[in-house]
C-alpha cells in the first residue's frame, strides 16, 4: 500500500522532460540501439518470487484454495493497466493528441472503448481484434455508447512496446476536451490513471531502459525527492492538504470507533449509528466540494464560451458591446447587420470567458446572411452556455418560439445539455411587466435575466446567473487557495465511491466488519494523496480513546 505513493514520488521526478538533463530525456522516449541487448532479457521483476535469497527460504503464501478459481487470470490482477494523455495539454490545441494505455489488459480495455469502423461492414461496430503495430481507424465510445471522438488506434503488443507491456495508443483530436473524454472512457472501462511518468517507470522496471539511464534517474531522484515532496504538500497546496488531513482524521476516528468494537466488544458502549451516518454524510460533502474545485480548475485553464443568439435586431451586438465594455460589434438599426461571428473576451468571477455574438437567426434568401445563420447555430451548439436574447419591445414573438424550437431540437439530436439563459433586452422600452416573461419557453431556460444593453442595466445579473449555472458561486469569494489536480481528483472519486459503498453496507445492515473495508479504502485513497499508512494509527487511537482490555 505504501508503495503507490512511492511511484508518485519516483515519477514526479522522472517525468519532467523540460527540467531533465537534456542528455537524458531522449533516452526515455526511444530506445538507443545499444539498449537492444536488454530486450531479450526476461522480465525478472514481474515475478516476485524469483528472489535473490529464495534458495535459503521457502516463501509460503497460501491462497485460499476455495477461491482459487477466481484468480485464474492472475497476471491481470497483479499488474494494473494504466492510461494517460501523453501529449502536452494546457497549451493551444494541437491537431492530434495521444492517449496511451499500457498493461496486461490494455487491449481488452481499448476494445471496450474503441470500435473500429471498417468499410466492409455495412453498418455498426465490431469488436476490435488488433494486430500488433497495425493501425486501425474507428471511434471511441463512452460507457453510454455515445461517440466521444474519432481516433486511430495503434496497438503495440508486448514486448515490442515502450513499456514492454501491451500498449495501445489512441490518436485523438488534439483538443483538451477530446483527450480528457477519451481518457475518462478508458478509465471507466477499467484502466487506472497513470502516475506522471509511470510509463517510463514501467519501461525501466521491465528492463527497457538501461543501467546508465537508471543511474541518471537515481541522481535525479536523490537530489530532489524530499524537498519536492514536502514543498508539494506544504507549500503549494496548503489548503488542500489540510482538508485531506481533516478528512483522513475523520476516517480514522470512525475506524477507531468501529474497530475498537471488533476487538473489545464487551467493554464498549453501543455504536451511535446516527452519528456515524452523519459523519459519513459530512465527509461525502467535503469530498464533493473538493471535487467541485476540480471543475473550477478546469474552468480556470480553458475558460467558458458563451454564445449570444436570437432573432435579428433584438440587441445581441449591443449586449456584447455593453458586456465587454467595447465597440467590438457594429450596431445599427438594420436587422441582420451581424453576418459573421464576433468574439469578445471578458472575465466572469475570475474565469476567462469568450463572448460570441452571432448573426440573427431567421429565414433568409441572402446568401451571406444564410451562411451566417448556419454558423450561429453551429456556434450555439458548441458553446458552454447559450444566451438567447429577445426584445422586450416586441414581446415574445412566434419567431422566438420557432427559433427556440430549432435550438432545442438541435441540442437534443446532438445530445447536448448546454444550459440556456433567456435575456430580455430593451427593458427600458418595455410596456409589459417583467413577471410575464418567466413562463416563456417553458423549462428550456435555466435563468431569466432582464437587461438594457444601452445603459448596461442587468449585466451584473447576467454574470451572476452564469456563475450560478457553471457552479462558480459555490467557490468562496476571493477564489480558492488550492485546486485539485486530476490524480487527486481520482483519489477523491475513489473515496467518494468508497463512502457510497459504506453507506449502502450500513443500510443493508451488513456486519460491522464490512464497514471497515470501505472505510479503510477511503482512508487509503486519502493516504495516497498525503502518503501515509494507517494501521498503527488506528490501534494507538483505540488504546488512547477507550477503556479496554482485561
Amino acid at each position, binding site marked *: *500500500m*505504501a*508503495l503507490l505513493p*512511492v511511484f508518485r*514520488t519516483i515519477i514526479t521526478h522522472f517525468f519532467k522532460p523540460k527540467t531533465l538533463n537534456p542528455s537524458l530525456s531522449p533516452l526515455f522516449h526511444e530506445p538507443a540501439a545499444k539498449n537492444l*541487448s536488454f530486450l*531479450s*532479457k*526476461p522480465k*525478472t*521483476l514481474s515475478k*516476485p*518470487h524469483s*528472489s*535473490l*535469497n529464495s534458495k*535459503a*527460504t*521457502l*516463501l*509460503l*503464501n*497460501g*491462497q*485460499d*484454495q*476455495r*477461491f482459487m478459481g*477466481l*484468480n485464474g487470470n*492472475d497476471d491481470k*490482477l497483479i*499488474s*494494473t493497466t494504466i492510461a494517460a494523455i501523453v501529449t502536452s495539454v494546457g497549451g493551444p490545441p494541437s491537431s492530434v493528441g495521444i492517449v496511451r494505455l499500457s498493461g496486461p489488459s490494455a487491449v481488452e480495455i481499448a476494445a471496450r472503448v474503441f470500435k473500429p469502423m471498417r468499410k466492409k461492414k455495412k453498418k455498426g461496430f465490431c469488436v476490435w481484434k488488433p494486430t500488433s503495430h497495425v493501425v486501425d481507424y474507428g471511434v471511441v465510445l463512452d460507457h453510454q455508447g455515445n461517440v466521444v471522438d474519432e481516433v486511430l488506434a495503434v496497438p503495440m503488443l508486448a514486448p515490442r512496446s515502450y513499456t514492454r507491456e501491451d500498449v495501445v495508443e489512441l490518436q485523438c483530436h488534439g483538443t483538451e476536451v477530446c483527450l480528457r473524454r477519451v481518457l475518462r472512457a478508458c478509465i471507466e472501462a477499467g484502466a487506472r490513471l497513470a502516475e506522471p511518468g509511470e510509463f517510463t517507470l514501467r519501461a525501466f522496471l521491465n528492463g527497457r531502459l*538501461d*543501467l546508465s539511464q*537508471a543511474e541518471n534517474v*537515481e541522481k535525479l*531522484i*536523490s537530489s530532489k*525527492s*524530499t524537498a519536492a515532496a514536502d514543498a508539494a504538500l506544504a507549500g503549494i497546496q496548503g489548503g488542500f492538504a489540510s482538508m485531506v488531513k481533516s478528512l483522513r482524521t475523520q476516517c480514522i476516528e470512525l475506524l477507531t470507533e468501529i474497530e475498537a468494537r*471488533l*476487538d473489545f466488544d464487551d*467493554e464498549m458502549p453501543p455504536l451511535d449509528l446516527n452519528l456515524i451516518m452523519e459523519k459519513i454524510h459530512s465527509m461525502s460533502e467535503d469530498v464533493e466540494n473538493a471535487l467541485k474545485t476540480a471543475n473550477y480548475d478546469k474552468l480556470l485553464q480553458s475558460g467558458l464560451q458563451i454564445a449570444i443568439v436570437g432573432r435579428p435586431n433584438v440587441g445581441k451586438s449591443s449586449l456584447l458591446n455593453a458586456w465587454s465594455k467595447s465597440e467590438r460589434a457594429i450596431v445599427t438599426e438594420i436587422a441582420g447587420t451581424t453576418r459573421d461571428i464576433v468574439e469578445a473576451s471578458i472575465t466572469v468571477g475570475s474565469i476567462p470567458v469568450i463572448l460570441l455574438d452571432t448573426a440573427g437567426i431567421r429565414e433568409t434568401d441572402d446568401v451571406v446572411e444564410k451562411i451566417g445563420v448556419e454558423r450561429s447555430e453551429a456556434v450555439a451548439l458548441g458553446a458552454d452556455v447559450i444566451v438567447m436574447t429577445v426584445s422586450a419591445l416586441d414581446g415574445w414573438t412566434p419567431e422566438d418560439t420557432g427559433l427556440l424550437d430549432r435550438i432545442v431540437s438541435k441540442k437534443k439530436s446532438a445530445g447536448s445539455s448546454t444550459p440556456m439563459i433567456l435575456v430580455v433586452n430593451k427593458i427600458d422600452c418595455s410596456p409589459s411587466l417583467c413577471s410575464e416573461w418567466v413562463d416563456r419557453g417553458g423549462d428550456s431556460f435555466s435563468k431569466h435575466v432582464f437587461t438594457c444593453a444601452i445603459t448596461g442595466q442587468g449585466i451584473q445579473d447576467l454574470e451572476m446567473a452564469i456563475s450560478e449555472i457553471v457552479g462558480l458561486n459555490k467557490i468562496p469569494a476571493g477564489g480558492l487557495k488550492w485546486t485539485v489536480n486530476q490524480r487527486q481528483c481520482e483519489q477523491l472519486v475513489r473515496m467518494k465511491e468508497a463512502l457510497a459503498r459504506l453507506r449502502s453496507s450500513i443500510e*443493508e*445492515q*451488513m456486519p*460491522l*466488519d*464490512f464497514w471497515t*473495508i470501505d472505510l*479503510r479504502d477511503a482512508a487509503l485513497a486519502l493516504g495516497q494523496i498525503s502518503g501515509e499508512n494507517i*494501521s*498503527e494509527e*488506528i*490501534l494507538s487511537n483505540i488504546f488512547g480513546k477507550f*477503556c*479496554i*482490555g482485561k
Partner: protein
Amino acid sequence: MLKKYCYLQKRVLNTSRGPAVRALRAQTDKREYAMEMKKIVESTPNLSIREAMVIDILLGKNDNVEGVCTFFGMNFYAPSVVLTTGTFMSGKIWVGRTSMPAGRAGESASEGLTENLQCLGFDTDRLKTGTPARVDIRTVDFTGLEPQPGDKEVHWFSFDPDVQIEREQMCCYLTRTTKITHQLIKENLHETPTYGGWVEAKGPRYCPSIEDKIVRFQDKESHQIFLEPEGRSVPELYVQGFSTGLPERLQLPLLRTLPGLENCSMLRPAYAVEYDFLPAYQCSRSLMTKKIDGLFFSGQINGTTGYEEAAAQGIISGINAARHSDGKPLIVLERESSYIGTLIDDLVTKDLREPYRMLTSRSEHRLLLRSDNADSRLTPLGREIGLIDDRRWKLYEDKQTRILEEKKRLKTVRISGGDLAADITCVSGQPVRDSSTLESLLKKPHVQYEVFDKHGFGNEQLSRAEKECVEIDVKYEGFIKRQQIQLQQMAHQQHRPLPEDLDYHAMITLSLEAREKLSKVRPQTIGQASRVGGVSPADITALLIIIEASRRKAQEQRRHEMLTSVMTETDHESSVPSPKTVTL
C-alpha cells in the same frame, strides 16, 4: 492443539460483527492441559527430554549454533536450538513495593542467559506484564451475578472430526467494580508501582491494570470484571480485568468491594512481572536469528504476550528448527497469508514498546483471513512440507469438494414462489423474483443457510461448519473479491525480495533515519522495508532504484564474463548457454 481436549468453556465472540472477526475463545483447564501436554511430550517417539537451566549458547566456527550450556556445567549439542524463555529471563515479580526474582509465582527466574546473549552481540530490553489475583471459587456467591455460559453449539479449533469431542462446559460470571472499589484505589494510588513511580517497564495498553483504567477513564463509573474458573478440579477463580500493582494487604479488601466477592478468600495476590526480551528485529521471518545460524527465538522472548501468540511462533520456530537440522530451506508465512504471518511480520519490522498481542485490527486484509477458511489457506502448505498425513489430506480434499459442489448447486437450483420465497422475503425484507437461484437468495440481507434446511432445500451431506463456509463464500463474495484484488495489487510490489548483504549506510540517497533503521531491521522484502518506522515512501523508491541498478550491473558483468569465456573456449561454443538465459 490441546485446547480441543481440555476446554472448560467455549464461545464464539463477535458473531454479529462479520465472518472475519468471529473468534473462537476457549477457557482451558490449566491443570488438565499441563497433564495432557506432559503425557504427549513424554510419549512422543524419538523425543528425549532433559530439564536444566540454560545459561549460555555454544557457538561453532561459522557463527552457527552448536548447542547449549547449563547452569551445572553440562553441554548439550544440537544443530538447531530454540529459545523460549517466557517471562523467566531475569524475571522479577512485584507485589506492591516488594519484589523478588522469579519467572512466575513460585518458580525461580533464569539468570545469566541475558548477559551471555548480550556478549554474543544481541540487543535486549525489558517488558512488564501482570496477572490478577486468584480467588477461592467456594467463597464466591454467584447468585446475583450475570452468568456467561458457553455456546450451546460448540465450535472447534481443529478441522479434524476425530478430536472434536464434546464435554460439559463450565459457566463464567460477570461482576462490576463499584464506587467503593474506585474510592479505595484513588486513595491508595501512591502505593501502586506506576503512580508511585518505582517501576518504569512498559506494560501492555490493551491490558491495563485496574488503577490505570480508573485514572485514565475517570468518567466511567464502573468496569466489567469477569470471573473465570481455572479448572474442573482446582478451586482457583481467575479475576479477569482486575490486575493491579497494589500491595497484598490492600488486595483482599479491594476484591471484597466486588459484588459476589464480599466474603471471598484470596488464594494468590495479583502481581506484575518484569522480564528480559530480545527485540525481534534480530530475527528473520523464519524466527531464526540473523546473527547465529540455527538459533531460533520463539514466544515472549520476542516481545509477545498471550498463549495464541506463543503457539503461533512455536509452530513456525519448531518447523524451521527441524528443517534447519535437515538442511532444508526454512519456511516463511507471508503477512497476508495468515495471522501467523501478520504476527511475525509485525514482530520483525516494528518497534515494540509493549508486549505484542494479536488483534484482528492488525490485519489489513482480515476478510481473507477467517477461521472458517484457515484450512483452505494453510492445509495445502502443511501438506507440502510434510505435516499433513494422508488421512488428514483426504479429509481436507473431501471437504473442499463438498463445498465446491454445494456452491455449484446453489448457482443452478432455482425456485419460484413457495414457502422458501415467502420466508426469505420476510427475513430480508426484499422481494424474491421468479426463478431465483438459491445463490441469489443467500446473498440477501439476513438470509442464512438454515432457511434452506428448514424448507428442504439444504444439502444434508454438509456439516454445519461446511454450510457456514458456503454461506460466507457466497454471501460476501463481492467483498472478498475486492479485498483479494487489493491484496494482489499490493503483494506484487511488496514481495520483491531485498538482498541480504545490502549496505544501507552506503546508500546516500536514503534519508539518514531510513539508513539507520533499515540497517538495524534488515528487512527481507520491499514490503517489510516500507513498514519499518521512519522509512518514507521516497526512501523506498530510492531503494528500489538502487537495487535495480545493482542487479543490472551484476548481470552486465556476468554477461561480459560469459562472452569472454565463449571467446576463449570457442570449441565449446555450442554447449555454452546463450546470454539471455543467464538470470538470477
